[in-house]
């Protein structure tokens, strides 16, 4: 693995090897001194052309826990404001000796484009609607912790599927681990098709006997574009205690954050026993440590 862009062309052993490493990293994070020298001498850049505090902090913490040097580029406070292109920004960082780039952008494909410009490893930190592979990895990791296996498990993903990179990456990754993925959302927010995934406008169909439920954030832009009415969405697609009764008892609940309480999810559910939201955040650091390790150390050995 030279880059982590999406899961096209990935196989199960590759994913499992990455998740095994993440388990080791998770143990490191339990120690009183949460730091290992694995990436000493490497430089990781977080290059966020689209702002995202949570993902950036998670990656930076992951890199620092492994003793890498971290530089951080944020669109709002940078030369991008002066009209510098993504390509020139990356070439400048390359000239400074960066080994790995975590790239976030609002357009699908920017990390793919970056691999044509820089020699270092590229990690997709979320590109448009396209992919958010480390989010899917941390979701898979969290689900495996809770369920033991994903083989034959039914995972429901609920919300704005059309515009969601989290849904797309989970739709690629979870079936690789044996899960059945059902995506439910309002018809105007569903894609025509996603390979290997059941798409449905009926929330009940997705929740029925589900082993786990992942709830996506509903963005304000969708209402502004006239694609859905907020109250209609809440009435028909909000995941509530009552609707969750269709799922398996104590089926875990995931949310990639940031959350709109009482929009996509009934307020109190996020804090209930079945919610794994905090666990997701913790596992995110471990999974990102594993990705950086595989890309930087794996690449050295190759």
């Amino acid at each position: 693995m030279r880059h982590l862009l999406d899961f096209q062309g990935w196989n199960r052993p590759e994913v499992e090897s990455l998740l095994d490493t993440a388990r080791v990293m998770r143990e490191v994070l339990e120690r009183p001194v949460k730091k290992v020298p694995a990436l000493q001498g490497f430089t990781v850049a977080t290059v966020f052309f689209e702002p995202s505090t949570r993902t950036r902090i998670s990656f930076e913490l992951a890199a620092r826990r492994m003793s890498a040097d971290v530089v951080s580029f944020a669109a709002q406070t940078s030369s991008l404001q002066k009209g510098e292109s993504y390509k020139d920004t990356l070439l400048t960082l390359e000239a400074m000796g960066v080994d790995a780039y975590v790239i976030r952008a609002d357009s699908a494909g920017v990390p793919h484009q970056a691999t044509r410009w820089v020699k270092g490893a590229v990690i997709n930190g979320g590109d448009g609607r396209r992919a958010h592979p480390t989010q899917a990895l941390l979701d898979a990791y969290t689900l495996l912790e809770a369920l033991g296996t994903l083989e034959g498990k039914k995972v429901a993903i609920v919300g704005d599927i059309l515009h969601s990179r989290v849904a797309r990456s989970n739709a690629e990754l979870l079936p690789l681990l044996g899960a059945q993925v059902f995506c439910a959302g309002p018809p105007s927010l569903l894609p025509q098709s996603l390979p290997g995934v059941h798409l449905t406008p009926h929330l009940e169909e997705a929740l029925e006997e589900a082993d786990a439920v992942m709830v996506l954030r509903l963005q304000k832009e969708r209402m502004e574009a006239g694609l859905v009415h907020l109250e209609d969405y809440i009435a028909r697609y909000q995941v509530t205690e009552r609707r969750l009764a269709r799922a398996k008892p104590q089926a875990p609940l995931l949310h990639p954050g940031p959350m709109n309480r009482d929009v996509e999810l009934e307020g109190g559910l996020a804090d209930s026993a079945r919610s794994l939201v905090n666990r997701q955040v913790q596992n995110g650091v471990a999974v990102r440590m594993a990705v950086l390790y595989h890309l930087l150390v794996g690449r050295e050995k190759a």
Partner: protein
Amino acid sequence: MILIRNVRLVDARGERGPADVLIGEGRILSLEGGEAKQVVDGTGCFLAPGFLDLHAHLREPGEEVKEDLFSGLLAAVRGGYTDLVSMPNTKPPVDTPEAVRALKEKAKALGLARLHPAAALTLGQEGKHLAPAGLLREAGAVLLTDDGRTNEDAGVLAAGLLMAAPLGLPVAVHAEDAGLRRNGVMNDGPLADLLGLPGNPPEAEAARIARDLEVLRYALRRSQATPRLHVQHLSTKRGLELLREAKRAGLPVTAEATPHHLTLTEEALKAFDPLFKVAPPLRTREDQEALVEGLLDGTLDAIATDHAPHTLAEKEMDLLRAPFGIPSLEVAFPLLYTELHLKRGFPLPRLVALFTDGPRQVLGLPPLHLEEGAEASLVLLSPKERPVDPRAFASKARYSPWAGWVLGGWPVLTLVAGRIVHEALK
């Protein structure tokens, strides 16, 4: 006097020869040889009437960093074009007679391909108030269009068709429903869903063509002269079907297809390269097959480039922000000669017609054939194959979706009314 010896002749009427073509006083003097100072050996090559491009963006005035009249018209003659229609979506748009005259005069002084400016249908191409069609025609505009934008107000388009009709000017439309198209950057469908890119659905084109055909019916009913609608860069099977029906019903409508829609599909977007970002978007294999059918059965009248140069830096932006457009003046004929004629047996005279008489007819120009007395606007085409090398382009857009494709049919000599404007014989 120029003599092109032992050359095969191809025009819309067919293929014949070899002949010895004698050129003088701007005309074809003889097809049976004669004395000349300059003799060109045409062995193995074929000679065709000069090409006419109905749809090129030369960016002057205002965006000379992308292209200007010199680079664009030089690219044109290298591509075998002797005549070219420039789109009016410059900065500012070409919506005054002065602007049309300025373009014509400057292009004439360059002595490359002949420029036939298209002018804006509406002031500022804003789709709200008609531009002065009659004055624009007097100044030399050959076509009216708001290309680059879509005509959202059907009433204004109808008025434009009515005004243009007695002037003999076709009105060309970029037929896409803006609401359905939204912010789409590639063909809508399973691949766009997979790639996470906003889709521009084929129905956006079909819906707008259907509407515009009704607008044309309205104008036809209301007008003494014949209003003529020209549909630009057709990309979908459904759009083609609508046009075929309309033509069968006798509506005065013409249409063009581009080299990129005829040789590339949405699959190209898999590499996330904005070089392939174009409007309307690259479609599916099925759409492409339908377009080829349309070229054969006459539903399509012309192959037009929609040559749309941008700077490389712009085309290296992300897929949401990079501008739409593909430059193709220098490769259009070799591309279709190779991909359609050589690889698929598409008849050569029909292909040549789509670059010559087809587009000429759209503008109301008489056919141009290889015969004694005809204007010597000609292109000599060599079957010798070589790869596309964008670094050698005359266009300022030195990149290409077809870089590295090995093509034959390259123009090695282009003459405008008997004058050599491009020569790559050796």
